[in-house]
């Protein structure tokens, strides 16, 4: 309606009417001039929407990809935890005193129940060393079974002699004579008794 008014207006204003028909052109209102670039905006909006959709799609693909990765890593973790448990279980049984003692006996070792120390400071022998007898070893029960049983050791074979010869002493041994006998690395105090600190 404003366009109609705009067209009519010049007629009233003009003082003299010229007979020649002038070429008339529709003057665009501000609103109409503004309306023209709307197509561009629409395009931008639609493109934006598509971009968002695609981004969302990609994101959810990545996330679900991650879910599969998490799932497979969790599976791997479970398997590794099983490995860890199986191995530590085996180790705990192998380091049980019964197994260590029986192994030492297989290697021809006997436990010496006498006390004697060599003081490094002055080379003095404290206590009186007595050689162990062959019978000082661990005896079995009357039925040949172990006196201090451990069912978990039933299926555990003795370590072969050759395989153990290279192994180093373990801290669990109360006397740790192996560590004492080895040269050099024994931590000791000048006055006190030598005590290997192996953990």
């Amino acid at each position, binding site marked *: *309606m404003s366009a109609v008014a705009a067209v009519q207006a010049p007629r009233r204003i003009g003082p003299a009417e010229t007979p020649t028909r002038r070429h008339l052109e529709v003057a665009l209102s501000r609103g109409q001039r503004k309306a023209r670039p709307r197509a561009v905006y629409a395009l931008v909006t639609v493109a934006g929407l598509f971009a968002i959709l695609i981004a969302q799609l990609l994101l959810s693909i990545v*996330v*679900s990809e*991650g*879910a*599969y990765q*998490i*799932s497979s890593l969790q599976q791997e973790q479970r398997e590794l935890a*099983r490995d860890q*448990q*199986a191995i530590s*279980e085996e180790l*705990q*049984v192998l*380091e*049980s*005193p*019964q197994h260590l*003692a029986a192994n030492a006996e297989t290697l021809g070792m006997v436990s010496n*129940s*006498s*006390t*004697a*120390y060599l003081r490094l400071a002055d080379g003095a022998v*404290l*206590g*009186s060393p*007595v050689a162990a007898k062959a019978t000082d070893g*661990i*005896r079995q*029960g*009357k039925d040949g079974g172990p*006196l*201090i*049983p*451990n*069912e*978990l*050791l039933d299926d555990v074979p003795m370590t072969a002699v050759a395989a153990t010869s290279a192994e180093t002493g373990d801290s*669990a*041994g*109360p*006397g740790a004579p192996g560590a004492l006998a080895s040269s050099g690395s024994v931590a000791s105090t000048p006055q*006190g*008794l030598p*005590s290997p600190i192996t953990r």
Partner: protein
Amino acid sequence: MTRQRASRRRLAIAILMTFAIVGVFVVRLVDIQIVKAADFNTESFDKRAIETPVVAPRGEIVDTNGVVLADSVTRYDITASPRNAGEFNRREDDGSISKVTVLQAVTEIAALTGTTANDLLLAVTADPTSDWAMLVKGVDIETFRAIRDLGIPWIYAQPQQHRTYPAGAVAGNLVGFVGTDGPQNGLEATEDSCLASVDGVSTYERGADGVRLPGSTVTTREAVPGGTLQLTIDRDLQWYVQQAIAEQAVALGAESAMAGVVRVSDGHLMALADYPAVDPNNVNGTDIPFYGSRAFSYMFEPGSIMKAITASMLVNEGAASPTTRVTVPGIWHTPDGARIRDSAPHGDMRWTLTGVLEQSSNVGMSMLGTRLKAGVRYDYLRKYGFGEATPIHFQGEASGILASNWNTQQNYDTTYGQGVSVTFAQMLSAYQAIANGGKQVPLTLVESCTAPDGTVTSTPSTDTEQIITPKAAATTVAMLESVVTGGWLSSQLSIPGYRIAAKTGTAEVALPTGGYGNDFIVSVAGIAPAENPEYVVIVTYVKPHIMKSSAAAAPTFRKIMTQVLKTYRVPPSTKPGPGYPTTW
């Protein structure tokens, strides 16, 4: 102008219709999203959501150095779905496909688990409509993996918590065991509040292929693993002590045996051994009466090892000194009608208090002991802890029998350890007090309980009690040295290089019918090193068949004490003992 009006009307109708349609949608939306939301959610949730139990392991029991004595591991129960059991196709390694029948499948499982294919086949075919049948219980991880690799589609593995005791019978009597219905014996049962775990529950949603939907995990209940129970026991020493008493008990034909090592400074039990030993991995291998720790539950008349306690009272009260002289007959008929006899007949001997201890004379100890009134001695015995359970309160712990009124014979008998019933643990505690300068520290078996979050609870009580003066305690220990240097078992008790204080005991075992029979309980209780006591060791054999005197216990005592001194690197003694005169 009519055209304008028409377009305006059209516009209005369009707007109205739009609003109407949007309105319908909104109503529906509200209905779905708010009004019926809860119902829909639960309905759909059950289809997508998986509730999984989160198993929390029971706590470990460890020794004083952290070595595991009891541990929780996972085992698998192999179950089958008989309804689905049938032939299936298996792809072999070379790519060919072979058919596997039910019989073949169970044969393969049987070979892996050490069961018989027949039993398994029976289990599968017993009820063909059933969806569940137990095949093999508690297979370990290795076997579980092997069975899984068989690729049998109709079997399932259900993880189970299982208790394992890597050290076997070492400390088995103390640790106890967990049965199918939960903790049943020993510390497993009494310290369950520390060890018990709380299983959790978590819920997640999963897609059609079983994969967990990202971000859908909800923990409805937190899983709380059990705490770690640390004992004062030293596993390696415990093993040595158990081994030592077991060897000798077998040699003697003893019914049972007990041995204990106490650290004097803090009353910690470094080892407490019982024979027969229980292997918690296989409790059926031991008779039921020996399941627990007899060191706490078995009451016995201790015999002459009690003389050290009586001597300590006499010295503390000033009623006698190490050199107090007494003329000791072989048999003494007391003025009030009691009759006391020494184990070996002898004429009148001129012994000091030290000599009475060295010779372990019942007559001499009765003569000197009764210098103190019965009430005074009773009070001392109570203070030493006799007549009540130790602060450990072990499962089934006995209090012993200490009557408050003694008859004429008992008045004398109690001075040398008859007519009073004690537990092994009480005796350890009494010797700890004498060794520790008269100060009794409560016996301790459980060092601490550490919760998974690191908080430490159940720390032992440290209420000490000064029972006798440090001087009286030191004097008593010095007197006991004479037993090792001059007693009849000297050669079997002495450890070269160390000053040992010890007392032997051969006690008669009361019959249920009254009086005493032919059975004895033989013991050696000792303290080392005498100049600065660090460890108490007591060894007791119950009803040995072969050798019915304390000579039976002496070799084991020396073996264990030597091992203790070596293990804890106690320096040898440098000065000789006082050597109180024993005769006059």
